[in-house]
């Protein structure tokens, strides 16, 4: 069976439409009014970019939408994307005090979208004030969230910044990789425009190391930021991976962001190998594009999945299927995939998944999506910059507070450093690197604008998520433990 498009233009548009629409005015007002306007709020502590959340929500409540959006973008230039793609349940919303009052947390993400959408709609430039150039130049490799976060911050500090992007359009995975029903590419494109409005120059279709040598950047610029993200999807190393109908998840998702939706090819019976958030995005989009059956195949059990629980719920709601404790042995077919030979797995007392002898079976599929995580680019970059240091997992090493690598003029952030996290982390790391560069090149620390909702904190604005981000689930357990151990008073 041939992999081809499955649904009409209208059907796909509907199926792939945003799962959470923008709030209407009344909804936004009701939700904004619910926020307590905490002082030194925990939600800020859980935002990696340290957005003044009560500050922007208060402004929505008073109808000051442009001011609200400005508060957001001041801390996070990708605030519009983050509003849609952040795992808010484990970030800001997971920290909201309302949870302790047995109430639903404030829908911070949706309010953030409401404010940034208003700015976008009105076509207002959030940062009209021209910054005096400080005479320094910085080059940035890649135009993903990390570089955009860094470039925006640098531009606002007076640097001449140039972003080099090998792809045709700037934005990185935020432009080509986010599940379509969470965010259409137009949002990422608008954000790039905001960054351009700050005076940042973009050179697309320009690969560093190929079109422009790395040495040239080091020679021509005062500092360089590496925000090249991760590489291709891992291979499984089983027979048949080269057959027609086998695609990398990132490639498949990229089609969705570059072709008209109704022309995106998808199989009748689609297998997705892997079980992280990318796998969930792939299986859900395959289903929405019209696959009759879309199945995740994972060698471990439900409880071992690395995908967020609500992502898993979404896939189940969309009618996707899950084959747990199962692994592929061989991809079958002549030229085109016709199925997968699979084997049952069992998890032993040592936690290792081993084959169940004699349990092999075959399932028919006409499309196989590989979602096994992305490769690091360590070997490539070690060639381009031999002095760079990488850890054993292939992650670029740098000082987490400043983003500075083992080469003093070279800074880094984003997936290349973290090994793959979220958009918001990449932006925050880019911002930190900008501050690191500013300290190096101008000898000045950057004390971000004092947030209105922490103004007057005698001990200083400690605990901002930007300086010391917290993630909620990891903390919940610790908190409970502590609470049991001692009572306050």
């Amino acid at each position, binding site marked *: 069976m041939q992999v081809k498009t499955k649904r009409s233009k209208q059907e796909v548009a509907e199926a792939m439409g945003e799962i959470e629409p923008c709030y209407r005015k009344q909804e936004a007002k009701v939700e904004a*009014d619910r926020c307590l306007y*905490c002082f030194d709020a925990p939600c800020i502590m859980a935002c990696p970019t340290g957005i003044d959340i009560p500050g922007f929500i208060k402004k929505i*409540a008073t109808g000051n939408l442009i001011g609200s959006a400005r508060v957001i973008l001041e801390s996070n230039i990708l605030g519009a994307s983050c509003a849609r793609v952040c795992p808010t349940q484990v970030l800001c919303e997971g920290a909201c005090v309302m949870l302790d009052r047995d109430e639903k947390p404030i829908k911070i993400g949706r309010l953030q979208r409401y404010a940034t959408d208003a700015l976008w709609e009105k076509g207002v430039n959030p940062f009209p004030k021209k910054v005096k150039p400080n005479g320094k130049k910085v080059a940035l490799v890649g135009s993903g969230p990390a570089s955009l976060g860094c470039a925006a911050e640098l531009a606002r500090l007076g640097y001449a910044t140039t972003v080099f992007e090998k792809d045709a359009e700037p934005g990185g995975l935020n432009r080509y990789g986010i599940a379509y029903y969470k965010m259409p590419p137009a949002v990422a494109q608008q954000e790039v425009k905001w960054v351009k409005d700050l005076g940042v120059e973009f050179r697309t279709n320009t690969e560093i190391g190929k079109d422009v040598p790395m040495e040239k950047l080091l020679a021509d610029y005062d500092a360089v930021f590496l925000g090249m993200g991760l590489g291709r999807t891992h291979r499984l190393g089983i027979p048949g991976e080269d057959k027609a109908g086998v695609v990398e998840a990132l490639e498949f998702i990229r089609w969705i962001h570059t072709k008209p939706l109704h022309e995106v090819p998808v199989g009748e019976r689609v297998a997705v190998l892997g079980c992280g958030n990318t796998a969930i995005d792939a299986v859900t989009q395959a289903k929405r594009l019209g696959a009759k059956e879309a199945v995740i195949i994972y060698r471990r059990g439900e409880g071992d999945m690395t995908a967020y629980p609500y992502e898993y719920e979404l896939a189940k709601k969309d009618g996707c299927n899950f084959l747990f404790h199962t692994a592929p042995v061989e991809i079958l077919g002549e030229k085109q995939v016709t199925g997968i030979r699979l084997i049952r797995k069992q998890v032993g007392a040592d936690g290792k998944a081993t084959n169940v002898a004699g349990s092999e079976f075959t399932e028919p599929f006409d499309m196989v999506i590989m979602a096994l995580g992305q490769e690091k680019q360590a070997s490539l970059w070690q060639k381009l910059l031999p002095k760079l240091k990488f850890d054993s997992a292939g992650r670029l090493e740098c000082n987490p507070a400043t983003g500075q690598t083992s080469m003093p003029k070279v800074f880094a952030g984003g997936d290349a450093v973290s090994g793959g996290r979220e958009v918001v982390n990449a932006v925050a790391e880019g911002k930190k690197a900008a501050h690191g560069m500013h300290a190096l090149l101008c000898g000045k620390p950057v004390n971000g604008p004092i947030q209105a909702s922490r103004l007057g904190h005698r001990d200083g604005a400690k605990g901002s998520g930007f300086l010391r981000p917290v993630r909620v689930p990891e903390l919940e357990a610790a908190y409970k433990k*502590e609470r049991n151990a001692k009572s306050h008073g």
Partner: protein
Amino acid sequence: MADLSVNFAGIHSPNPFWVASAPPANTAYQCHRAFEAGWGGLVWKTIGDPIVNVSSRYSSLDIAGNRMVGFNNIELISDRSIETNFKEIKECKKRWPNRALIASLMTDTKENWHEMLARALDSGADGVELNFGCPHGMCERGMGSAVGQNPDVMETIVGWVMEATQLPVIVKLTPNVTDVTRPARAAKKAGANAISLINTINSITQVNLDTMCPEPYVAGRSTHGGYCGPAVKPIALNMVQSCAIDPEVGLPISGIGGISNWKDAAEFIALGSTNVQVCTAIMHYGFRIVEDMIDGLNDFLDSKGMKSVNDLRGLAVQSVQKWETLDLHYQRIAKIDYDKCIGCNLCYIACEDGAHQAIALVSPNGQGLGPGRLPGKAIPQIKEKECVGCNLCSLVCPVEQCITMVDVPNDQNPLSWKEYQTRLASGKMKAIPAHD
């Protein structure tokens, strides 16, 4: 089941809940609906020479999604003819003989007052209420609050009324005065049987920033309106208590202003009202709200072991005294219940910026986990030595019973300002040092 019936200046009603003279009391139809719902009495929409109203008449103060926290109107008295109004009162009284039905009146000359009183008597109304409170429109024509603000004029007019009727007479007071006991005393002097208060307060609720004209908007203009609803309750309670404690007033009081439920009503009664009247809450939710009022007041009285609503009357009046009698040695401080605290730090910032810098945000370093679920999250801690017991933090805390104010016992004898001044003067004690 407690007895809710009241005798207000000789007017009997099965419960103390009356519909105030206002739009809900405009027609026989509404009167039937009100009594069907259970209201104990109704003061008919003020009757006088029919007026002409403008279009666009109300505006409101909304706070954080709560509609009509305060309500403003520029309506005048009844726009229906005097004949129609009295005809309908007659009809209603016939159908509801056991409910209190009061005719609210407003007119100008002695002759006109006498004629209105004759019609009221003929209609079978249980009493009359003299509207000396309407603060807009009617006062420009020398009626309403123009009378209520001038005790001498009011005394004269009440005198005309008293000489011409045997019906119980209630004088409705305007709050737009500096001392409400002055018109109340005038009513008493002239022989009135009762007072009712408050009528509406002069107001402008909002300015439309596009038209640069307040609401309610009438062809490019607005006017000073009358304010009522939940936001005016504290003002009304203050005035009711002032009249209740004044021996020179000594009249039964019908409490009005911002009453929305049984609790509000109970507070008015505890501060000296015999019954209460309601307008805005009905305009907001309809007559059905009386069901909970009756039920709730009943349960409350039962829980306090009171047999009748009359047992509640005035119980709180004497607890409000002059400032100079308060004990300067009494001390309370704030206490945080950390099991309830959600870590919003609103108490901290309120005390820090708005009160006495008596709450510390305990530094996250070394503090470990705190409320608000995040490790390292700063938590509020009362500096007991600094706390002056102002209550502010407990008022801003969004969690019920999380910050409580607790008494700090001390071994000093009570000392009022008055005593303090005498003892200072006689050299019996040293001055209390000023705060630094």
